[in-house]
């Protein structure tokens, strides 16, 4: 299956028409998505029209933008003008936004063709996509299993070839964890790297938009388009990445001089990864060392407090962000919220209540500062940090949904990065004995997307895990051995 970068090049070179590329994806959606439920809304008409327009512009010899004709899809918490946007919630069903979010505007301007809106846990709250109000999304590697979440639809769609690239959001791991569970590549940029204008807020100080694709290079190509300051989001970082610098970072195939830190706390006896995951990540670290990097142990001492800190801050902000869905403006009232959303609204409301605020929200903010300092100190000694993305591979539907605490542990390795506002990348690094994908997480310093892309691209140049595709029929892929080219 082709990549974003290859298709963009092919269309520009007139090797294939944009309309053909889009029709192929729509056909694949029609045949596979009734089982997977990666999409909430498919905009076949709009996508075909946009693709034809790209072809017409090429006919006239006009520029079509860096992603001209590339079919992509958007997590359904990204606001799209004229296209229903629900955030996976009944509360917003039927809402047709009057405006485009900044990332949507930038994608359209780049020539990308938007196929539709992708499934997610309601308001991005969940790690399995099971709390989508409409239908649980399924993992293409094993439809009895979850794709992860909350950007489960995005990861599943990329894995199954229902789009070439996608945009998700990541508040505590919502891009990286599903990318790992579906065997695709996902990047959560530095907080402030990408505008949040037009992102339906879950937790404003943690939310960040990022790309999912099959390769590190595809993620870089998408990030090139969406990154940079925005006058409509005052939490955006003022500096834009140098144009082309992110794609250029993907050109490396060795890692001499790169220091890779491995935090010992992430491999503790309690809360450590499952053996198959540990094995795959260990092999990946060996591969990275073989490419010339120095792999060393580091410490992030406040790691043990991250889950509690995260669930206080994220729920506090969520309780406020969701206050507007009060039944006055958006058709359905608060009864439309699912259990997980209600749970988080109640937790957050409590954490901000008079008399409790300092003990909960206030203390969580102070611990957040300590976690941020952990990372600052760690990046004195290394250039990137490597960890498993998730402690376990894709689990079965229903396995954790009734036990919120077990579900929350799915993000144990990913959410510190959001608390510290840092960039994180997840990329495929092997399979479990059952044939389920395993993800390697790389964390970088603030605005250090380029170093993540360098290391990730060098690793993908040396391995082919990211090229493995789920089998077309039902059932898990079996016995995917090897991995090195």
């Amino acid at each position, binding site marked *: 299956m082709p990549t974003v970068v290859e298709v963009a090049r092919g269309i520009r070179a007139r090797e294939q028409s944009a309309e053909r590329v889009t029709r192929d994806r729509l056909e694949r959606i029609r045949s596979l998505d009734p089982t997977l439920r990666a999409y909430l809304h498919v905009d076949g008409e709009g996508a075909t029209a946009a693709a034809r327009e790209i072809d017409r512009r090429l006919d006239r010899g006009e520029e079509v933008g860096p992603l001209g004709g590339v079919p992509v899809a958007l997590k359904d918490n990204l606001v799209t003008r004229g296209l229903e946007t629900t955030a996976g919630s009944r509360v917003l069903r039927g809402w047709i936004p*009057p405006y485009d979010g900044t990332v949507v505007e930038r994608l359209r301007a780049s020539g990308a063709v938007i196929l539709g809106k992708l499934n997610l846990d309601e308001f991005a709250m969940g790690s399995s996509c099971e709390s989508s109000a409409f239908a649980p999304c399924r993992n293409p590697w094993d439809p009895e299993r979850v794709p992860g979440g909350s950007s489960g639809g995005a990861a599943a769609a990329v894995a199954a070839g229902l789009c070439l690239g996608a945009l998700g959001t990541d508040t505590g791991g919502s891009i990286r964890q599903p990318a790992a569970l579906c065997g695709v590549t996902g990047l959560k940029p530095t907080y402030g790297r990408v505008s949040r*204008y037009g992102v339906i807020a879950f937790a404003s100080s943690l939310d960040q938009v990022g790309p999912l694709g099959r390769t590190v290079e595809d993620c870089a190509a998408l990030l090139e388009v969406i990154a940079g300051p925005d006058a409509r989001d*005052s*939490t955006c970082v003022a500096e834009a990445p140098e144009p082309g610098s992110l794609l250029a970072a993907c050109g490396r195939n060795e890692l001499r001089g790169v220091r890779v830190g491995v935090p010992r706390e992430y491999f503790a006896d309690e809360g450590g990864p499952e053996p198959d995951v540990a094995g795959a990540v260990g092999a990946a670290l060996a591969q990275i060392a073989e490419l010339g990097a120095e792999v060393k142990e580091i410490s992030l001492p406040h790691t043990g407090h991250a889950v509690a800190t995260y669930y206080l801050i994220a729920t506090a902000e969520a309780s*406020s962000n969701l206050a*507007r869905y*009060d039944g*006055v*403006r958006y058709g359905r009232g608060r009864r439309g919220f699912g259990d997980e959303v209600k749970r988080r609204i109640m937790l957050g409301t409590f954490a*901000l209540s008079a008399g409790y605020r300092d003990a909960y929200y206030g203390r969580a903010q102070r611990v957040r500062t300590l976690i941020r300092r952990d990372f600052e100190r760690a990046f004195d000694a290394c250039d990137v940090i490597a960890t498993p993305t998730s402690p376990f591979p894709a689990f079965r539907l229903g396995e954790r949904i009734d036990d919120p605490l077990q579900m929350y542990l799915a993000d144990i390795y990913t959410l510190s990065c959001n608390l510290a506002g840092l960039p994180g990348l997840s990329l495929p690094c092997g399979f479990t004995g059952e044939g389920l994908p395993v993800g390697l997480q790389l964390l970088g310093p603030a605005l250090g997307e380029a170093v993540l892309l360098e290391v990730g691209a060098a690793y993908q140049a040396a391995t082919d895990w990211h090229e493995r595709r789920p089998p077309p029929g039902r059932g898990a892929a079996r016995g995917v051995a090897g991995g090195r080219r």
Partner: protein
Amino acid sequence: MSGYEAVIGLEVHVQLATAAKIFCGCSTRFGAPPNTQVCPVCTGQPGALPVLNRRAVDLALRLALACGCTVRGRSRFARKSYFYPDLPKGYQITQHEQPLAEGGAVEIGGGARVNLTRIHLEEDAGKTIHGRSTSSVDLNRAGVPLCEIVSEPDLRRPEDAAEYLRVLRGLVRALAVSDGNMEQGSLRCDANVSLRPAGSDALGVKTEIKNLNSFRFVQRALEHEIARQRARLAAGGALAQETRLWDADAGVTRSMRSKEQGRDYRYFPDPDLPPLWVDGAWIARVRAALPELPRARRARLVAELGLSEHDADRLTRERELADYFEATVAAGGAPGRAARWITTELLARVPDPRAVGGAPVTPERLAGLLALWDAGRINSGLAKRIFALMWEGGESAEAVAGREGLFQQQDASVVEAAVRRVVAGSPELAAQYRAGRRNVLGYLVGQVMRTTRGRADPRLVNELLRRELSDQD
């Protein structure tokens, strides 16, 4: 029951006179059709984000500097959560723990000072319009910038509270921070009041009174509330800390909610807005652009132009009026005469002193009129008649007086002849005068003025009459 004294503090909301709202680009114009000045941001659409309008900060800083407040180098916006249909996000963006400015004071009459607690920025909510069976929400006002001025509990009398508000309104108008228009809601007031035994330093149980939309209501509501609290305490009763609503029709305050029913606003810093940094350069820029404040202007008018305190106070309550006055003086009008003319004749014709700039008689024309008077070419009665004609026709005093023949009679022999005629025609009155009834002189002056159509110089008439009456003595 004079054993108690009242302790009053006011919370005043002032709408800042920016063209755009505080967190989006929508217009703040008053009176537009409902929901025509809205966008995704101020209607709280999912995904929309606030961006601070720095012009609103400029205006709040003006007021803060004029009141001598300490401006925080770093302040923060917070979310104040409560449910109301006209609050689109379910929270109001305001400043809580780290306001824009703290301290400072406002001077009211007689050199008394009202200390300020804080001045902070916030956004307004929308407006709910209740119909017979449905309620409608207009979000034009949602996101309009407000500046809240919280006073210390320094006021003791309801009339001082009203005076404080008048001075504050004059101040925000002089600074062009706000139009301070209470009827349109651009100046709103809540009052906190409690009683304590006279001479005590302790604070009693306070009530907060809302819905005070005129100076008169502030005073009346406080008077009523103080009387109510006093009666309750005198009867040995206890007061509840509560929020009360002023009912202007009934002239009473009514309980709205008790402290126990009070809302938990669940304040926390708004993660969508970074801290607001105000550095020395910003403060210096705002300070350099501060206009002369009413108090300083009043003092200058007294010291430099010799006005009475009363006239100076009256003129400086509205910036536009003082501007008009100073323009008249600059065009040659005598300060004392100009001040009196403006505070009496001009204001009698202009209902809103702030609209004086659009008066049909410009300061230059008024100066021309006063110059004729100073030169003895007209008298006060003629001046009023000329002024009335100038108001109608927009001509100069000279032109009106020339056309209508309203210059003072310069030929003394004409006046003298008129005096003789009047005295000859009123022998009884002349006899009475000579018999010592001096007050008939006024009537005789009036007669002469009438026969000369007001064109005689009243002083000359007086003098000639006296002489005429004593000649035949």
